Protein backbone atom coordinates (compact mmCIF):
# COMPACT_ATOMS: atom_id res chain seq x y z
CA UNK A 1 0.00 0.00 0.00
CA UNK A 2 2.75 2.40 0.96
CA UNK A 3 4.60 1.55 -2.24
CA UNK A 4 1.61 2.29 -4.45
CA UNK A 5 0.87 5.56 -2.66
CA UNK A 6 4.53 6.58 -2.86
CA UNK A 7 4.70 5.79 -6.57
CA UNK A 8 1.54 7.64 -7.41
CA UNK A 9 2.49 10.73 -5.49
CA UNK A 10 5.81 11.10 -7.33
CA UNK A 11 4.63 14.04 -9.49
CA UNK A 12 3.80 16.15 -6.47
CA UNK A 13 6.86 15.01 -4.52
CA UNK A 14 9.02 16.09 -7.44
CA UNK A 15 7.19 19.35 -7.89
CA UNK A 16 7.11 20.49 -4.28
CA UNK A 17 9.66 18.45 -2.33
CA UNK A 18 9.66 19.06 1.41
CA UNK A 19 7.94 22.39 1.03
CA UNK A 20 4.77 20.35 0.49
CA UNK A 21 4.61 19.92 4.24
CA UNK A 22 5.26 23.55 5.12
CA UNK A 23 3.37 25.47 2.47
CA UNK A 24 -0.01 26.87 3.32
CA UNK A 25 -1.02 27.28 -0.30
CA UNK A 26 -3.73 24.95 -1.56
CA UNK A 27 -4.89 26.32 -4.83
CA UNK A 28 -6.07 24.00 -7.60
CA UNK A 29 -6.38 26.89 -10.03
CA UNK A 30 -2.74 27.92 -9.93
CA UNK A 31 -1.54 24.40 -9.26
CA UNK A 32 0.05 25.23 -5.92
CA UNK A 33 -0.40 22.55 -3.29
CA UNK A 34 0.84 22.52 0.28
CA UNK A 35 -0.27 20.30 3.10
CA UNK A 36 0.24 22.58 6.07
CA UNK A 37 -3.41 23.48 6.65
CA UNK A 38 -4.87 19.98 6.47
CA UNK A 39 -2.02 18.58 8.55
CA UNK A 40 -2.43 21.26 11.21
CA UNK A 41 -6.21 20.78 11.15
CA UNK A 42 -5.84 17.05 11.66
CA UNK A 43 -3.49 17.56 14.58
CA UNK A 44 -5.56 20.29 16.27
CA UNK A 45 -8.84 18.39 16.05
CA UNK A 46 -7.08 15.33 17.45
CA UNK A 47 -5.56 17.29 20.30
CA UNK A 48 -8.95 18.75 21.23
CA UNK A 49 -10.45 15.28 21.15
CA UNK A 50 -7.74 13.81 23.37
CA UNK A 51 -7.92 16.76 25.77
CA UNK A 52 -11.55 15.94 26.54
CA UNK A 53 -11.49 12.20 25.96
CA UNK A 54 -8.63 11.18 28.24
CA UNK A 55 -10.08 12.36 31.56
CA UNK A 56 -13.60 11.24 30.66
CA UNK A 57 -12.37 7.83 29.58
CA UNK A 58 -10.38 7.34 32.75
CA UNK A 59 -13.51 8.29 34.70
CA UNK A 60 -15.63 5.78 32.83
CA UNK A 61 -13.01 3.06 33.17
CA UNK A 62 -12.73 3.75 36.88
CA UNK A 63 -16.48 3.54 37.26
CA UNK A 64 -16.68 0.27 35.35
CA UNK A 65 -13.71 -1.35 37.05
CA UNK A 66 -14.06 -0.23 40.64
CA UNK A 67 -17.22 1.64 41.52
CA UNK A 68 -20.16 0.12 39.75
CA UNK A 69 -22.00 -2.68 41.48
CA UNK A 70 -21.36 -5.97 39.63
CA UNK A 71 -24.86 -6.25 38.16
CA UNK A 72 -24.42 -2.86 36.52
CA UNK A 73 -20.99 -3.49 35.00
CA UNK A 74 -22.05 -5.78 32.19
CA UNK A 75 -24.87 -3.69 30.73
CA UNK A 76 -22.98 -0.46 31.26
CA UNK A 77 -19.85 -1.72 29.59
CA UNK A 78 -21.91 -3.00 26.69
CA UNK A 79 -23.63 0.35 26.29
CA UNK A 80 -20.31 2.17 26.15
CA UNK A 81 -19.00 -0.34 23.64
CA UNK A 82 -22.12 0.09 21.53
CA UNK A 83 -21.18 3.75 21.19
CA UNK A 84 -18.15 2.48 19.28
CA UNK A 85 -20.33 0.47 16.94
CA UNK A 86 -22.39 3.39 15.66
CA UNK A 87 -21.12 4.18 12.16
CA UNK A 88 -19.00 7.31 12.03
CA UNK A 89 -21.18 8.92 9.41
CA UNK A 90 -24.08 8.92 11.86
CA UNK A 91 -21.90 10.79 14.35
CA UNK A 92 -21.03 13.28 11.65
CA UNK A 93 -24.63 13.85 10.70
CA UNK A 94 -25.65 14.20 14.32
CA UNK A 95 -22.80 16.65 14.82
CA UNK A 96 -23.94 18.74 11.88
CA UNK A 97 -27.67 18.85 12.58
CA UNK A 98 -27.83 18.61 16.35
CA UNK A 99 -24.55 19.52 17.98
CA UNK A 100 -23.44 22.44 15.84
CA UNK A 101 -26.63 24.51 16.33
CA UNK A 102 -26.20 24.00 20.08
CA UNK A 103 -22.60 25.11 19.80
CA UNK A 104 -23.50 28.15 17.73
CA UNK A 105 -26.40 29.28 19.91
CA UNK A 106 -25.26 28.47 23.41
CA UNK A 107 -21.75 27.17 23.93
CA UNK A 108 -19.73 29.45 21.69
CA UNK A 109 -21.32 32.75 22.76
CA UNK A 110 -20.83 31.70 26.36
CA UNK A 111 -17.18 30.78 25.84
CA UNK A 112 -16.68 34.01 24.00
CA UNK A 113 -18.15 36.18 26.69
CA UNK A 114 -15.90 34.62 29.32
CA UNK A 115 -12.74 33.73 27.42
CA UNK A 116 -13.02 35.90 24.33
CA UNK A 117 -9.82 37.76 25.14
CA UNK A 118 -7.81 34.63 24.32
CA UNK A 119 -7.31 34.39 20.56
CA UNK A 120 -8.34 30.73 20.73
CA UNK A 121 -11.92 31.74 21.42
CA UNK A 122 -12.16 34.81 19.24
CA UNK A 123 -14.09 35.32 16.05
CA UNK A 124 -17.66 34.50 15.11
CA UNK A 125 -18.98 31.15 16.31
CA UNK A 126 -20.74 29.46 13.43
CA UNK A 127 -21.26 26.09 14.99
CA UNK A 128 -19.11 24.20 12.56
CA UNK A 129 -15.37 24.42 12.95
CA UNK A 130 -12.41 22.97 14.78
CA UNK A 131 -13.99 22.88 18.22
CA UNK A 132 -17.11 21.05 17.11
CA UNK A 133 -15.05 18.61 15.07
CA UNK A 134 -12.91 17.96 18.11
CA UNK A 135 -15.97 17.34 20.28
CA UNK A 136 -17.50 14.87 17.84
CA UNK A 137 -14.16 13.08 17.71
CA UNK A 138 -14.14 13.03 21.50
CA UNK A 139 -17.43 11.15 21.55
CA UNK A 140 -16.13 8.72 18.97
CA UNK A 141 -12.88 7.77 20.67
CA UNK A 142 -14.14 7.62 24.27
CA UNK A 143 -15.47 4.07 23.87
CA UNK A 144 -12.17 2.80 22.49
CA UNK A 145 -9.99 4.42 25.11
CA UNK A 146 -12.23 3.65 28.06
CA UNK A 147 -12.71 -0.02 27.27
CA UNK A 148 -8.97 -0.57 26.93
CA UNK A 149 -8.26 1.34 30.14
CA UNK A 150 -10.92 -0.68 31.93
CA UNK A 151 -9.17 -3.87 30.89
CA UNK A 152 -5.88 -2.43 32.09
CA UNK A 153 -7.43 -1.55 35.47
CA UNK A 154 -8.91 -5.02 35.78
CA UNK A 155 -5.46 -6.51 35.22
CA UNK A 156 -4.03 -4.85 38.32
CA UNK A 157 -3.43 -7.70 40.80
CA UNK A 158 -5.95 -7.78 43.63
CA UNK A 159 -3.34 -8.12 46.44
CA UNK A 160 -1.67 -4.91 45.29
CA UNK A 161 -4.91 -2.99 45.55
CA UNK A 162 -5.91 -4.58 48.84
CA UNK A 163 -2.63 -3.80 50.52
CA UNK A 164 -3.05 -0.16 49.55
CA UNK A 165 -6.60 -0.15 50.91
CA UNK A 166 -5.26 -1.85 54.02
CA UNK A 167 -2.92 1.07 54.57
CA UNK A 168 -5.99 3.29 54.74
CA UNK A 169 -5.92 4.73 51.25
CA UNK A 170 -9.09 6.13 49.77
CA UNK A 171 -10.32 4.74 46.45
CA UNK A 172 -8.91 7.70 44.56
CA UNK A 173 -5.51 7.30 46.18
CA UNK A 174 -5.44 3.63 45.22
CA UNK A 175 -6.25 4.58 41.65
CA UNK A 176 -3.74 7.40 41.49
CA UNK A 177 -0.83 5.77 43.27
CA UNK A 178 -1.31 2.09 42.49
CA UNK A 179 -3.51 1.42 39.51
CA UNK A 180 -2.43 4.19 37.17
CA UNK A 181 1.31 3.68 37.74
CA UNK A 182 0.87 -0.07 37.37
CA UNK A 183 -0.96 0.27 34.09
CA UNK A 184 0.91 3.30 32.80
CA UNK A 185 2.02 1.67 29.57
CA UNK A 186 -1.36 0.17 28.92
CA UNK A 187 -3.02 3.53 29.40
CA UNK A 188 -0.53 5.20 27.07
CA UNK A 189 -1.27 2.49 24.54
CA UNK A 190 -5.00 3.11 24.90
CA UNK A 191 -4.53 6.82 24.38
CA UNK A 192 -2.45 6.27 21.27
CA UNK A 193 -5.07 3.85 19.98
CA UNK A 194 -7.70 6.54 20.35
CA UNK A 195 -5.35 9.06 18.78
CA UNK A 196 -4.87 6.83 15.75
CA UNK A 197 -8.62 6.64 15.37
CA UNK A 198 -9.06 10.36 15.69
CA UNK A 199 -6.31 11.14 13.19
CA UNK A 200 -7.78 9.01 10.46
CA UNK A 201 -11.46 9.64 11.09
CA UNK A 202 -13.05 10.91 7.93
CA UNK A 203 -16.78 11.15 7.80
CA UNK A 204 -17.54 12.57 11.20
CA UNK A 205 -14.99 15.33 10.73
CA UNK A 206 -15.90 16.17 7.16
CA UNK A 207 -19.41 17.10 8.22
CA UNK A 208 -18.50 19.57 10.90
CA UNK A 209 -15.02 20.93 10.28
CA UNK A 210 -16.12 23.45 7.68
CA UNK A 211 -13.62 22.69 4.92
CA UNK A 212 -11.82 25.94 4.48
CA UNK A 213 -8.20 26.75 3.74
CA UNK A 214 -7.51 29.46 6.24
CA UNK A 215 -5.15 29.14 9.10
CA UNK A 216 -6.61 30.79 12.14
CA UNK A 217 -5.88 30.91 15.84
CA UNK A 218 -9.53 30.62 16.70
CA UNK A 219 -10.97 27.23 17.50
CA UNK A 220 -14.32 28.47 16.20
CA UNK A 221 -12.97 28.98 12.70
CA UNK A 222 -13.59 26.34 10.08
CA UNK A 223 -10.54 24.42 9.00
CA UNK A 224 -9.72 21.22 7.24
CA UNK A 225 -8.21 17.87 7.99
CA UNK A 226 -6.34 15.49 5.72
CA UNK A 227 -9.09 12.91 5.67
CA UNK A 228 -11.85 15.41 4.93
CA UNK A 229 -9.80 17.04 2.18
CA UNK A 230 -9.50 13.65 0.56
CA UNK A 231 -13.19 12.92 0.99
CA UNK A 232 -14.25 16.21 -0.53
CA UNK A 233 -11.83 16.67 -3.37
CA UNK A 234 -10.57 13.33 -4.55
CA UNK A 235 -13.31 12.58 -7.05
CA UNK A 236 -13.27 16.13 -8.33
CA UNK A 237 -9.53 16.42 -8.77
CA UNK A 238 -8.45 16.93 -12.35
CA UNK A 239 -4.91 17.02 -13.58
CA UNK A 240 -2.04 14.85 -12.57
CA UNK A 241 -0.55 17.25 -10.06
CA UNK A 242 -3.82 17.78 -8.16
CA UNK A 243 -4.52 14.07 -7.85
CA UNK A 244 -0.99 13.19 -6.89
CA UNK A 245 -0.94 15.92 -4.24
CA UNK A 246 -4.06 14.40 -2.73
CA UNK A 247 -2.43 10.99 -2.85
CA UNK A 248 0.61 12.38 -1.11
CA UNK A 249 -1.72 13.74 1.59
CA UNK A 250 -3.07 10.23 1.98
CA UNK A 251 0.49 8.93 2.29
CA UNK A 252 1.27 11.49 4.98
CA UNK A 253 -1.86 10.52 6.91
CA UNK A 254 -1.07 6.84 6.59
CA UNK A 255 2.46 7.29 7.89
CA UNK A 256 1.33 9.42 10.84
CA UNK A 257 -1.30 6.90 11.92
CA UNK A 258 1.02 3.98 11.24
CA UNK A 259 3.60 5.36 13.64
CA UNK A 260 0.97 6.25 16.26
CA UNK A 261 -0.72 2.86 16.15
CA UNK A 262 2.63 1.08 16.03
CA UNK A 263 3.61 2.74 19.29
CA UNK A 264 0.23 1.86 20.77
CA UNK A 265 0.70 -1.80 19.89
CA UNK A 266 4.22 -1.91 21.24
CA UNK A 267 3.11 -0.49 24.57
CA UNK A 268 0.03 -2.66 24.89
CA UNK A 269 2.10 -5.71 23.96
CA UNK A 270 4.81 -5.09 26.50
CA UNK A 271 2.10 -4.78 29.14
CA UNK A 272 0.74 -8.20 28.32
CA UNK A 273 4.02 -10.06 28.57
Amino acid at each position, binding site marked *: *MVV*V*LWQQSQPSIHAFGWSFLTSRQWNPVTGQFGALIPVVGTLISTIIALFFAI*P*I*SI*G*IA*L*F*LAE*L*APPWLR*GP*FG*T*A*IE*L*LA*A*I*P*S*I*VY*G*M*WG*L*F*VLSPIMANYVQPWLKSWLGFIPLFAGPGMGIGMLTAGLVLT*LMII*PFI*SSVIRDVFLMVPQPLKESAYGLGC*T*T*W*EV*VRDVMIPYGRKGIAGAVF*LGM*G*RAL*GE*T*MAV*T*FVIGNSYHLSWSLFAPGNSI*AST*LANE*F*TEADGKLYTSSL*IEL*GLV*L*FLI*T*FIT*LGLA*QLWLRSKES
Partner: protein
Amino acid sequence: MIRRRQFVNALVLAISCLAAFGGLFVLIWILADVVVKGAGAINWSFFSQLPAPPGMPGGGLANAIVGTFLMTVTAAAIAVPFGIMAGVYLAEFGDNFMGKTARFLSDILVSAPSIVVGVFVYLVMVRTMGHFSGWAGAVSLAIIMLPVVSRTTEEMLKMVGPEMRESALALGAPYWRMMAGVVSRAAGPGIATGVMLAVARVAGETAPLLFTALNSPYWMHSMNEPMANLTVVLFNYAMSPYDDWHTLAWGAALLITMAVLIVNIITRLMLGRKRRR
Protein backbone atom coordinates in the same frame (compact mmCIF):
# COMPACT_ATOMS: atom_id res chain seq x y z
CA MET B 1 -5.99 16.23 56.49
CA ILE B 2 -8.20 13.17 56.53
CA ARG B 3 -11.19 15.27 55.71
CA ARG B 4 -9.40 16.74 52.71
CA ARG B 5 -8.49 13.30 51.46
CA GLN B 6 -12.03 12.08 51.84
CA PHE B 7 -13.31 15.15 50.09
CA VAL B 8 -10.96 14.67 47.13
CA ASN B 9 -11.96 11.03 47.01
CA ALA B 10 -15.65 11.81 46.95
CA LEU B 11 -15.10 14.48 44.31
CA VAL B 12 -13.20 12.15 41.99
CA LEU B 13 -15.71 9.35 42.44
CA ALA B 14 -18.55 11.73 41.69
CA ILE B 15 -16.80 12.91 38.53
CA SER B 16 -16.23 9.32 37.52
CA CYS B 17 -19.91 8.44 37.93
CA LEU B 18 -20.80 11.58 36.04
CA ALA B 19 -18.51 10.58 33.16
CA ALA B 20 -20.03 7.12 32.97
CA PHE B 21 -23.61 8.35 33.03
CA GLY B 22 -22.66 11.11 30.62
CA GLY B 23 -21.48 8.49 28.16
CA LEU B 24 -24.73 6.60 28.52
CA PHE B 25 -26.67 9.83 28.14
CA VAL B 26 -24.93 10.67 24.88
CA LEU B 27 -25.61 7.20 23.52
CA ILE B 28 -29.30 7.58 24.28
CA TRP B 29 -29.33 11.14 22.96
CA ILE B 30 -27.84 10.18 19.60
CA LEU B 31 -30.07 7.13 19.26
CA ALA B 32 -33.16 9.12 20.18
CA ASP B 33 -32.36 11.80 17.61
CA VAL B 34 -31.75 9.23 14.92
CA VAL B 35 -34.95 7.35 15.70
CA VAL B 36 -37.15 10.42 16.01
CA LYS B 37 -35.89 12.14 12.90
CA GLY B 38 -35.46 8.98 10.88
CA ALA B 39 -38.81 7.42 11.66
CA GLY B 40 -40.59 10.01 9.55
CA ALA B 41 -38.70 8.90 6.46
CA ILE B 42 -39.39 5.21 6.80
CA ASN B 43 -42.35 4.15 4.76
CA TRP B 44 -43.06 1.79 1.91
CA SER B 45 -41.62 3.99 -0.82
CA PHE B 46 -38.40 4.43 1.16
CA PHE B 47 -37.70 0.75 0.57
CA SER B 48 -39.18 0.37 -2.89
CA GLN B 49 -38.46 3.48 -4.97
CA LEU B 50 -35.53 5.17 -6.61
CA PRO B 51 -34.34 8.53 -5.30
CA ALA B 52 -36.39 11.46 -6.58
CA PRO B 53 -34.88 14.75 -7.77
CA PRO B 54 -34.92 17.47 -5.11
CA GLY B 55 -38.28 19.16 -4.75
CA MET B 56 -40.26 16.18 -5.98
CA PRO B 57 -42.20 14.44 -3.25
CA GLY B 58 -41.61 10.78 -2.48
CA GLY B 59 -38.70 8.77 -3.65
CA GLY B 60 -36.78 6.19 -1.73
CA LEU B 61 -33.44 4.61 -1.42
CA ALA B 62 -34.20 1.15 -2.73
CA ASN B 63 -31.16 1.02 -4.99
CA ALA B 64 -28.86 2.17 -2.20
CA ILE B 65 -30.18 -0.45 0.19
CA VAL B 66 -29.62 -3.18 -2.37
CA GLY B 67 -26.20 -1.72 -3.23
CA THR B 68 -24.99 -1.68 0.36
CA PHE B 69 -26.27 -5.20 0.84
CA LEU B 70 -24.56 -6.52 -2.30
CA MET B 71 -21.25 -4.87 -1.59
CA THR B 72 -21.17 -5.98 2.02
CA VAL B 73 -21.96 -9.57 1.06
CA THR B 74 -19.32 -9.56 -1.68
CA ALA B 75 -16.78 -8.07 0.68
CA ALA B 76 -17.54 -10.78 3.22
CA ALA B 77 -17.25 -13.45 0.53
CA ILE B 78 -13.77 -12.17 -0.30
CA ALA B 79 -12.51 -11.42 3.18
CA VAL B 80 -13.87 -14.31 5.23
CA PRO B 81 -12.04 -17.22 3.53
CA PHE B 82 -8.75 -15.33 3.35
CA GLY B 83 -9.17 -13.97 6.86
CA ILE B 84 -9.90 -17.36 8.37
CA MET B 85 -6.98 -18.96 6.54
CA ALA B 86 -4.66 -16.21 7.70
CA GLY B 87 -5.98 -16.61 11.24
CA VAL B 88 -5.38 -20.37 11.17
CA TYR B 89 -1.86 -19.79 9.95
CA LEU B 90 -1.18 -17.23 12.68
CA ALA B 91 -2.62 -19.41 15.43
CA GLU B 92 -1.01 -22.70 14.41
CA PHE B 93 2.26 -21.80 12.76
CA GLY B 94 2.61 -18.12 13.57
CA ASP B 95 5.11 -18.37 16.37
CA ASN B 96 8.02 -17.10 14.34
CA PHE B 97 9.28 -13.82 12.95
CA MET B 98 6.91 -13.80 10.00
CA GLY B 99 3.89 -14.54 12.16
CA LYS B 100 4.80 -11.84 14.62
CA THR B 101 5.26 -9.28 11.88
CA ALA B 102 1.96 -10.23 10.29
CA ARG B 103 0.19 -9.97 13.63
CA PHE B 104 1.70 -6.57 14.35
CA LEU B 105 0.78 -5.24 10.91
CA SER B 106 -2.77 -6.55 11.02
CA ASP B 107 -3.28 -5.01 14.45
CA ILE B 108 -2.29 -1.69 12.97
CA LEU B 109 -4.39 -2.17 9.85
CA VAL B 110 -7.46 -2.80 11.99
CA SER B 111 -7.56 0.86 12.89
CA ALA B 112 -5.78 2.38 9.90
CA PRO B 113 -7.68 5.27 8.34
CA SER B 114 -10.24 3.74 6.03
CA ILE B 115 -10.09 6.65 3.61
CA VAL B 116 -6.51 5.72 2.74
CA VAL B 117 -7.77 2.25 1.85
CA GLY B 118 -10.18 3.99 -0.49
CA VAL B 119 -7.36 5.94 -2.14
CA PHE B 120 -5.35 2.74 -2.50
CA VAL B 121 -8.18 0.82 -4.15
CA TYR B 122 -8.89 3.79 -6.38
CA LEU B 123 -5.32 3.71 -7.65
CA VAL B 124 -5.14 -0.04 -8.05
CA MET B 125 -8.61 -0.86 -9.36
CA VAL B 126 -10.56 2.18 -10.44
CA ARG B 127 -7.73 3.70 -12.40
CA THR B 128 -6.70 0.49 -14.13
CA MET B 129 -10.30 -0.40 -14.99
CA GLY B 130 -11.04 3.13 -16.01
CA HIS B 131 -14.30 3.58 -14.12
CA PHE B 132 -15.82 3.40 -10.64
CA SER B 133 -17.47 0.11 -9.82
CA GLY B 134 -19.25 -1.90 -7.19
CA TRP B 135 -16.40 -4.40 -7.31
CA ALA B 136 -13.91 -1.76 -6.25
CA GLY B 137 -16.19 -0.81 -3.37
CA ALA B 138 -16.49 -4.42 -2.28
CA VAL B 139 -12.73 -4.92 -2.44
CA SER B 140 -12.02 -1.90 -0.28
CA LEU B 141 -14.54 -3.12 2.30
CA ALA B 142 -12.88 -6.53 2.15
CA ILE B 143 -9.47 -5.00 2.86
CA ILE B 144 -10.92 -3.40 5.97
CA MET B 145 -12.57 -6.64 7.08
CA LEU B 146 -9.60 -8.89 6.51
CA PRO B 147 -7.46 -8.07 9.56
CA VAL B 148 -10.50 -8.10 11.86
CA VAL B 149 -11.50 -11.57 10.72
CA SER B 150 -8.00 -13.01 10.89
CA ARG B 151 -7.31 -11.67 14.36
CA THR B 152 -10.60 -12.99 15.78
CA THR B 153 -10.04 -16.37 14.18
CA GLU B 154 -6.60 -16.54 15.69
CA GLU B 155 -7.79 -15.64 19.15
CA MET B 156 -10.66 -18.12 19.04
CA LEU B 157 -8.38 -20.93 17.87
CA LYS B 158 -5.94 -20.21 20.64
CA MET B 159 -8.73 -20.55 23.19
CA VAL B 160 -9.22 -24.20 22.23
CA GLY B 161 -7.26 -26.06 24.85
CA PRO B 162 -4.39 -28.47 24.15
CA GLU B 163 -6.36 -31.39 25.64
CA MET B 164 -8.70 -31.50 22.68
CA ARG B 165 -5.93 -31.17 20.15
CA GLU B 166 -3.83 -33.83 21.77
CA SER B 167 -6.65 -36.33 22.13
CA ALA B 168 -7.45 -35.95 18.44
CA LEU B 169 -3.81 -36.43 17.51
CA ALA B 170 -3.53 -39.37 19.90
CA LEU B 171 -6.41 -41.10 18.10
CA GLY B 172 -4.20 -41.04 15.05
CA ALA B 173 -5.84 -38.14 13.26
CA PRO B 174 -3.49 -36.28 10.92
CA TYR B 175 -2.96 -32.60 11.67
CA TRP B 176 -5.45 -31.36 9.11
CA ARG B 177 -8.21 -33.67 10.40
CA MET B 178 -7.57 -32.40 13.88
CA MET B 179 -7.94 -28.82 12.64
CA ALA B 180 -10.94 -29.38 10.39
CA GLY B 181 -12.88 -31.83 12.50
CA VAL B 182 -12.17 -30.92 16.09
CA VAL B 183 -10.62 -27.51 16.64
CA SER B 184 -12.75 -25.72 14.08
CA ARG B 185 -15.92 -27.08 15.73
CA ALA B 186 -14.89 -25.79 19.10
CA ALA B 187 -13.86 -22.41 17.75
CA GLY B 188 -16.67 -22.10 15.21
CA PRO B 189 -19.23 -20.02 17.13
CA GLY B 190 -16.57 -17.57 18.25
CA ILE B 191 -15.31 -17.12 14.70
CA ALA B 192 -18.85 -16.65 13.45
CA THR B 193 -19.33 -13.88 15.99
CA GLY B 194 -16.16 -12.18 14.87
CA VAL B 195 -17.27 -12.33 11.27
CA MET B 196 -20.68 -10.87 12.13
CA LEU B 197 -19.08 -7.99 13.99
CA ALA B 198 -16.72 -7.33 11.08
CA VAL B 199 -19.65 -7.30 8.66
CA ALA B 200 -21.53 -4.89 10.89
CA ARG B 201 -18.53 -2.63 10.98
CA VAL B 202 -18.00 -2.41 7.23
CA ALA B 203 -21.72 -2.00 6.54
CA GLY B 204 -21.46 1.42 8.13
CA GLU B 205 -18.25 2.44 6.38
CA THR B 206 -18.40 5.42 4.09
CA ALA B 207 -14.94 6.74 3.48
CA PRO B 208 -13.58 3.87 1.37
CA LEU B 209 -16.66 3.88 -0.84
CA LEU B 210 -16.54 7.57 -1.75
CA PHE B 211 -14.12 7.05 -4.59
CA THR B 212 -14.48 3.38 -5.33
CA ALA B 213 -18.17 2.59 -5.65
CA LEU B 214 -19.10 6.27 -6.00
CA ASN B 215 -22.86 6.60 -6.17
CA SER B 216 -25.63 6.35 -8.68
CA PRO B 217 -29.26 7.39 -8.82
CA TYR B 218 -30.27 4.36 -10.90
CA TRP B 219 -30.65 0.64 -10.51
CA MET B 220 -27.39 -1.16 -11.07
CA HIS B 221 -27.22 -3.79 -13.79
CA SER B 222 -23.99 -5.36 -12.61
CA MET B 223 -21.32 -4.90 -9.99
CA ASN B 224 -19.16 -3.48 -12.75
CA GLU B 225 -20.62 0.02 -12.68
CA PRO B 226 -20.88 2.83 -10.13
CA MET B 227 -23.15 1.65 -7.41
CA ALA B 228 -25.44 3.40 -4.98
CA ASN B 229 -24.96 2.64 -1.32
CA LEU B 230 -26.61 3.88 1.82
CA THR B 231 -23.67 5.60 3.44
CA VAL B 232 -22.51 7.66 0.47
CA VAL B 233 -26.12 8.61 -0.28
CA LEU B 234 -26.48 9.63 3.34
CA PHE B 235 -23.37 11.78 3.06
CA ASN B 236 -24.50 13.51 -0.14
CA TYR B 237 -28.04 14.05 1.08
CA ALA B 238 -27.06 15.37 4.47
CA MET B 239 -24.65 17.86 2.88
CA SER B 240 -27.31 19.00 0.40
CA PRO B 241 -29.48 22.04 1.04
CA TYR B 242 -32.84 20.27 0.50
CA ASP B 243 -35.09 19.39 3.40
CA ASP B 244 -36.60 16.29 1.77
CA TRP B 245 -33.15 14.95 1.27
CA HIS B 246 -32.26 15.60 4.89
CA THR B 247 -35.24 13.55 5.94
CA LEU B 248 -34.17 10.71 3.68
CA ALA B 249 -30.67 10.96 5.09
CA TRP B 250 -32.01 10.57 8.63
CA GLY B 251 -33.98 7.57 7.43
CA ALA B 252 -30.83 6.04 6.01
CA ALA B 253 -28.99 6.79 9.24
CA LEU B 254 -31.74 5.05 11.22
CA LEU B 255 -31.60 2.00 8.99
CA ILE B 256 -27.81 1.63 9.19
CA THR B 257 -27.60 2.31 12.90
CA MET B 258 -30.35 -0.14 13.75
CA ALA B 259 -28.86 -2.86 11.55
CA VAL B 260 -25.42 -2.41 13.09
CA LEU B 261 -26.67 -2.23 16.66
CA ILE B 262 -28.96 -5.22 16.32
CA VAL B 263 -26.14 -7.36 14.92
CA ASN B 264 -23.90 -6.19 17.75
CA ILE B 265 -26.41 -6.91 20.47
CA ILE B 266 -27.33 -10.32 19.11
CA THR B 267 -23.71 -11.41 18.80
CA ARG B 268 -22.97 -10.14 22.28
CA LEU B 269 -25.88 -12.09 23.72
CA MET B 270 -24.68 -15.21 21.90
CA LEU B 271 -21.16 -14.76 23.21
CA GLY B 272 -22.43 -14.15 26.72
CA ARG B 273 -24.48 -17.32 26.73
CA LYS B 274 -21.54 -19.32 25.47
CA ARG B 275 -19.25 -17.99 28.15
CA ARG B 276 -21.66 -18.81 30.92
CA ARG B 277 -22.09 -22.38 29.76
